[in-house]
């Protein structure tokens, strides 16, 4: 479904050029859920943004469905296949557009018909009743907003969802609801997920495989079973797993 080869992403120009991603390589199979983990600044979100076409300064090869992507442009077909859900549901919805307006606009842009029925269907899909249709973002809780953002991503009927820390701005109880929703949607619609998170337990719950990143490089691609068992090949992976396990006082 998705192949990334030899991906470099940078910001700025020499001598101030920052290489955010260096030689990243991984592939995500159809229907798979793949995680990217690492600390802030490790380049995990940058990879996602480069795939989505939000960063023009990259080189290497990104293939979606076997078709290589151009560096700076994405065509309509791309956005029918790939959609993104952002981290902060408070920032990713227009404060003066109702849920109905957000979804209707997206559906129109995607050239969909029967917009009215589709909006109702989308709201059902993400577990929001019809009563939410004419609400504005400030009338919604964080979890409900993230459901709207997911509905918006689903409007295009994509096959690959890019999830950038979809639950890190939410309380744990709400996080559980959203993670369950994402799992349900994946099995119902046969979606493929590429998910960025700094929370190893969330990735462990959602993903089949994951890549561990440090300083812009992928240090290791591992199976989720190895993550659970703490079997990292690299030192850094083991450190990250140990640090995520929580706090233990120094001896």
């Amino acid at each position, binding site marked *: 479904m998705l192949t990334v080869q030899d991906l470099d992403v940078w910001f700025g120009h020499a001598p101030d050029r920052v290489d955010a991603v260096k030689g990243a390589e991984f592939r995500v199979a159809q229907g798979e859920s793949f995680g990217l983990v690492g*600390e*802030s600044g490790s380049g995990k979100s940058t990879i996602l943004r480069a795939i989505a076409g939000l960063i023009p300064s990259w080189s290497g090869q990104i293939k979606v469905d076997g078709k290589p992507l151009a560096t700076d442009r994405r065509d309509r077909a791309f956005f029918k296949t790939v959609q993104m859900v952002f981290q902060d549901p408070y920032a990713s919805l227009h404060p003066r557009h109702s849920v109905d307006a957000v979804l209707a606009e997206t559906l129109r842009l995607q050239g969909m018909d029967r917009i009215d029925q589709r909006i109702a269907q989308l709201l059902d899909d993400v577990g929001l009743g019809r009563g939410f249709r004419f609400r504005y973002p400030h009338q919604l809780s*964080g979890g409900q907003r993230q459901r709207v953002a997911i509905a918006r991503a689903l409007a295009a009927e994509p096959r690959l969802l890019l999830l950038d820390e979809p639950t890190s701005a939410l*309380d*744990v*109880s*709400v*996080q*559980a*609801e959203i*993670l*369950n929703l994402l*799992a349900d949607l994946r099995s119902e619609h046969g979606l493929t997920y590429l998910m960025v998170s*700094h929370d*190893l*337990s*969330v990735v*462990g*719950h*959602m993903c089949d495989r994951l890549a561990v990143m440090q300083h812009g490089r992928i240090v290791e691609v591992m199976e989720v079973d190895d*993550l*659970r068992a703490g079997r990292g090949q690299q030192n850094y992976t083991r*450190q*990250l*797993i140990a*640090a*995520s*396990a*929580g*706090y*233990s*006082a*120094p001896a």
Partner: protein
Amino acid sequence: MTEPLLSVRDLRVTFPTRQGEFQAVRGISFDLGRERLGVVGESGSGKSMTGRAILGLVRPPGRVEAERLDLGGKSILNLPDRQMRKIRGGRISMVMQDPKFSLNPVMPIGQQIIEAYRLHADVPRNRARQKALEMLEAVQIRDPERVMNAYPHEVSGGMGQRIMIAMMLAPDPQILIADEPTSALDVSVRTEVLNIMDGLVRDRGMGLIFISHDLNLVAQFCDRVLIMYAGRVVETLPARDLHQARHPYTRGLLDSLPRLDAPVDRLPVLQRQDSWREGDVLSPRADTELPGGL
């Protein structure tokens, strides 16, 4: 049992709204000794507001009321601003969530620490500078001379948070209130910052109020935990027993966390009940109301 550092009885914080009065904190009681006290709950449960109320940081039209709010045996409830400023920073300090928003962006870090320290200690500038360097060393900043002259944007998030801790601890406060001090930090940096706070609490015999939404972290780091729901404490228990919590809310929160060691297909979702808003407070033994101490 020694005298508690801080004693709170029936603390209430009220805000008038168009729909009538809204109580963000509804009658909280606890004592703080020389210990690490965790306060956990979801957003909106009133945990941050409790910290702000203790420091007198609730702005009008918000109101703070309490049967008792004593620091070292003396009431600090609704003190005039002048007196409160002496206590705030001097005897009770607070570390906020994000160092980026709590440091002055256009002032070198050293200046900020010196200024904060001299507000509470009557010392000449060069002595204050010495103290600032010592504090930066105490929070394990490797090159304190360089950091003194740096601006906040030139240091990383973890370093910024350590600088905040250094600044807050310079006047030697008795109580430190840390509001989500590690939520904006990476896991590896988190451990470092916690180690520093832990050491300082231990060495100086401070009382620490650690406000967090992260149950596992609190269970591992703190001595005692208050669990808040809708402005009230619903359960109090020793941190090491957190995983044996009995209140359905606490249990629900714990169960909704995905775990690496116990994979599940679906995460249990918290079913909220109205009774939690008013029901009894659970605490395993009567004496956990009193400070446990280190």
